[in-house]
């Protein structure tokens, strides 16, 4: 008995070491950092314990701008991407020939480097002195005025940001939703057909309830993922997001860390914890809502 105890823990040891050192310890550490005031990185000393870091962060204009950007991103991309993914999944489910081809194409963005593709998007959307850019060409075709989406007005930048984010998250959502739709027992649909159920009623009374657990899963993880947005922004606008006014909360955290003078881990920790609290709250709200609406 004792031997097997030892053996079990021995097998777990590598995992425990890695996780403990690189996950648990940092968690505690960050908590501590965020409450230490006036932490000086070079000398590793601090003045005292208090909420100064939080206060600083919450009053920082850059942080507030980042919060605003992140919230807009979340509110726009999560419902839109889930809705469009649902539409596409329903479409995929309804046609049989070419389905695999479409699914494979739709999944392509998942395996690509977001920075790499982001660059392409930047080129397509940017208007420079030399060139209009691909998207502006399309706008002209429809009779509009060209806009610089990368260096132009705020709404344009937000637009391309949301568009790119949706583009990036769609593969995962489409995949999950198509497998959810495929796992619905076909007999339900046959029974509904025999009972002369109109198509929209089949959708709202049968399809939606059956896949509602998956839909809520996507909404919850969608929210969490959107709040953590960062690399997509960098891909489009470059590393100095503050200059573009498009920073996100996570970007702010990294700025505070790496930015000017070897980092203010205190401010970064405080900001990171604020983010964590926001995400936790929203997730709890989501879970409460889903308990009411998710069927069986």
């Amino acid at each position, binding site marked *: 008995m004792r031997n097997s*105890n030892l*053996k*079990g823990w021995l*097998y*777990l040891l590598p*995992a425990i070491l*890695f*996780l403990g050192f*690189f*996950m*648990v*310890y*940092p*968690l505690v550490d*960050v908590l501590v*950092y965020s409450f230490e005031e006036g932490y000086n990185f070079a000398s590793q000393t601090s003045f005292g314990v208090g909420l100064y870091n939080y206060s600083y962060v919450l009053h920082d204009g850059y942080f507030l701008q980042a919060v605003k950007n992140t919230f807009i991103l979340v509110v726009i991309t999560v419902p839109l991407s889930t809705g469009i993914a649902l539409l*596409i999944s329903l479409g995929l489910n309804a*046609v049989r020939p070419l389905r695999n081809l*479409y*699914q*494979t*194409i*739709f*999944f*392509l963005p*998942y*395996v*690509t*480097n*977001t920075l*790499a*593709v982001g*660059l*392409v998007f930047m*080129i397509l959307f940017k208007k420079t002195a*030399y*060139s*209009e*850019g691909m998207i502006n*060409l399309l706008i002209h075709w429809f009779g509009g005025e060209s806009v610089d989406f990368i260096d132009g007005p705020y709404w344009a930048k937000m637009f391309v940001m949301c568009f790119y984010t949706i*583009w990036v998250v*769609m593969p995962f959502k489409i*995949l999950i939703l198509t*497998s*959810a739709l495929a796992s619905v027992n076909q007999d339900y649909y046959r029974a509904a057909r025999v009972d002369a159920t109109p198509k929209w009623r089949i959708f709202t009374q049968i399809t939606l309830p059956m896949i509602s657990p998956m839909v809520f*899963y996507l909404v919850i*993880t969608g929210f969490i993922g959107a709040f*953590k947005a*960062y690399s997509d922004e*960098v891909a489009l606008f*470059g*590393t100095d997001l503050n200059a573009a006014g498009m920073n996100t909360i996570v970007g702010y955290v990294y700025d505070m*860390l*790496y930015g000017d003078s070897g980092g203010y*881990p205190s401010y*970064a*920790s405080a900001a*990171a914890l604020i983010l*964590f609290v926001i*995400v936790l709250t929203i997730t709890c709200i989501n879970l409460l809502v889903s308990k009411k609406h998710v069927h069986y």
Partner: protein
Amino acid sequence: MAKQVDYEKIGRSARARGAAGKTVIYALLTVWAVMVLFPFYWMVLTSVKSYSAYNSEYIPRFFTLSPTLQNYADAFTAVPLARYFLNTLVFTLVTTAVMLLVVVLAAFAFARLDFRGKNIAFTLFLSLMMIPSELVVITNFVTITNLGLRNTFTGLILPSVTSVFYIYLLKENFEQIPGELYRAAKVDGTSDFKYLVKVMLPISQPTIVTITILKIIECWNSYVWPRLITDDAAYFLVSNGIQEIRENGFGRENIPAMMAAVVVISVPLIVLFLIFHKKIMAGVSRGGTKG
């Protein structure tokens, strides 16, 4: 119940509605397919346009009359793209290998071995999945810096190995292998380790392949961590390498060469995807639904 109903007409109109609906669906699907593929097309197209041709296009063209590979040559010579490539390769392979070792051992422990505190340990592990990586990065950054591991492979690799998610996935897979096999092997005097290697690994091969591929994708596309701890270009990975090119390198002037670099770093994963797409999609789907 039915009076003078024209059955033929009902049958025909149902079929016609079906055909119209299908057309709309295909149109919708094709629209999105174009939106997915177009950036890639543009990527490749731009990479073969010559520098002068590209810059002279005020209105961008959809094609090029004189494709050239010059940009690729430029990409490799102007910046150490090959170096970034190599770094990323090393990083990916080593991280994935270490991760496999850690994950396989841990999953086996949770799935088959009996030891005190097992359930508590597992619950703790699961709860770790909730910790956002953004929090953790901060301290790891400080730790690695203090250990003097900035701009080293060790510093890049170590924190990237951990992943509770893969342990969870593999454990579930291990548990589906009947316990009787284990007990029979024990009766025959097989050691645990031998059983793990000779029996469980071969049977779980599909899941292990999936985990490996997913980790490879994750490592290849990793950006934040390398960005944070490397400022020496000799240690850049492809993602922060690209970023570097874009901001400080020729990225600002020489877009076609930029695109050539982008194509080069995207190709490995795309090839991997084309070969293994079924496995990858099945793995992500299973992992997603388990979450």
